[in-house]
């Protein structure tokens, strides 16, 4: 297995071209799959026997929650690659991921609160998953705060990469400690998605996951192009890109 493809990913101009070519495809696919999933989830899927139609919030809540974690993991992986192989492109990917992940976390918290009100009569419930999601949001704020606090782009890349790695190591511990804390004081609450769902409910959810991932790919490639331009100093390949 030649390392050529890996080195190609290390060269900003090639990655910029790749991102430019693939963004519309990912964006378009995300839109189509999402529409199809919405149709399935809102119209075809039967209501849940217990939560009735309120359960349909799962179609936004679950994919956002998964994405908020997956994006942080992608960020930490890109950060590690950036630090180990000193690849500027990897740091650019990590920088591109952060705001998207933070927004997904906001979406998860928002939909979680909107789901909690009908089910438990309160917008905010100290459910272990929601609480972990809140701490994850603070981790994103910390990452973006550190990156903003350091002027020199190269140093900002390395310091925030370090924080992302430390954060991803701590995420499971935080989740475990929050679950422990919750079990001490409350009976475990059944959050969305654990309902025993029939296939008609499940396939739209899977499609929604796919739509969110495709959407993430499209947006991260756009932001990656912006980050690459910010980091690129030698004028050579920028000239024709900006023509």
């Amino acid at each position, binding site marked *: 297995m030649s390392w050529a493809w890996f080195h190609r990913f290390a060269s900003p101009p090639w990655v910029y071209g790749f991102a430019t070519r693939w963004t519309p495809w990912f964006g378009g696919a995300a839109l189509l799959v999402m529409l199809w999933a919405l149709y399935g989830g809102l119209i075809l899927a039967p209501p849940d026997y217990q939560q009735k139609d309120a359960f349909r919030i799962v179609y936004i809540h679950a994919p956002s929650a998964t994405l908020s974690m997956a994006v942080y993991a992608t960020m930490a992986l890109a950060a590690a690659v950036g630090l180990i192989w*000193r690849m500027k492109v990897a740091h650019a990917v990590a920088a591109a991921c952060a705001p998207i992940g933070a927004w997904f976390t906001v979406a998860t918290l928002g939909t979680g609160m909107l789901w909690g009100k009908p089910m438990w009569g309160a917008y905010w419930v100290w459910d272990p998953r929601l609480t972990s999601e809140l701490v994850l949001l603070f981790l994103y704020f910390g990452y973006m705060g550190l990156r903003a606090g350091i*002027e*020199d*782009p*190269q140093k900002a890349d390395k310091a925030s990469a370090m924080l992302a790695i430390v954060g991803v190591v701590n995420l499971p511990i935080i989740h475990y400690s929050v679950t422990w804390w919750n079990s001490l004081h409350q009976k475990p609450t059944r959050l969305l998605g654990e309902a025993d769902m029939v296939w008609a409910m499940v396939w739209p959810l899977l499609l929604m996951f796919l739509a969110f991932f495709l959407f993430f790919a499209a947006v991260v490639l756009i932001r990656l192009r912006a980050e690459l331009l910010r980091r690129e*100093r030698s004028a050579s390949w920028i000239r024709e890109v900006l023509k």
Partner: protein
Amino acid sequence: MLNVSGLHLWRGDRHVLRGVSFTANAGQCVLLTGRNGAGKTTLLRAIAGLLDPEEGQVQWRGASARSTRDEFHSELAYLGHEPPLKGDLTGRENLRYLVGIRRTLSADEIDAALTRTGARDFADRAVRTLSAGQRRRVALAGVLLSGALLWLLDEPTTNLDADGQQLVARLIEEQLARSGIVVAAVHHTLSLGAGEVVPLELEAA
């Protein structure tokens, strides 16, 4: 011994080091000159390994300085703009900790080094009560005490009076006589009696 090849480094948008290359062997002193902002300090910090160059390599004893970092650092003494001293400690205490973590040393050795750099009579006062020149002399004693083979000095004569500058020239000559290597960033040329001088001019970006 010390081989610097093709160093490129950017500070923000400024392309500060543009392919700097030189080699320095035992008994040689590289004199770095250039206007302010030409990258003298950046080059010294890149050689010391405090800064990672984007391109190019620093080699010590034939191996990359980054991969043999700890061995390289144990043979290196770096003195930057500010003497690395704690204000609340005396000169003697500062040296005991600063050099002590590198090599075992006795009080007499510290005393001898302080005497050599003319810092002995104010060595027991808290460093914050000393003048910039006196602090520079204590820091120079530290460089001497480290017994390092390679000296990286960033404008070693700043804040020093006339005979202080003479002292720096003598110390460098002695280091070269011990077949050591010195890379010094200087404003005005340093008159060195003995030892081979390798001038290196850096143009501003």
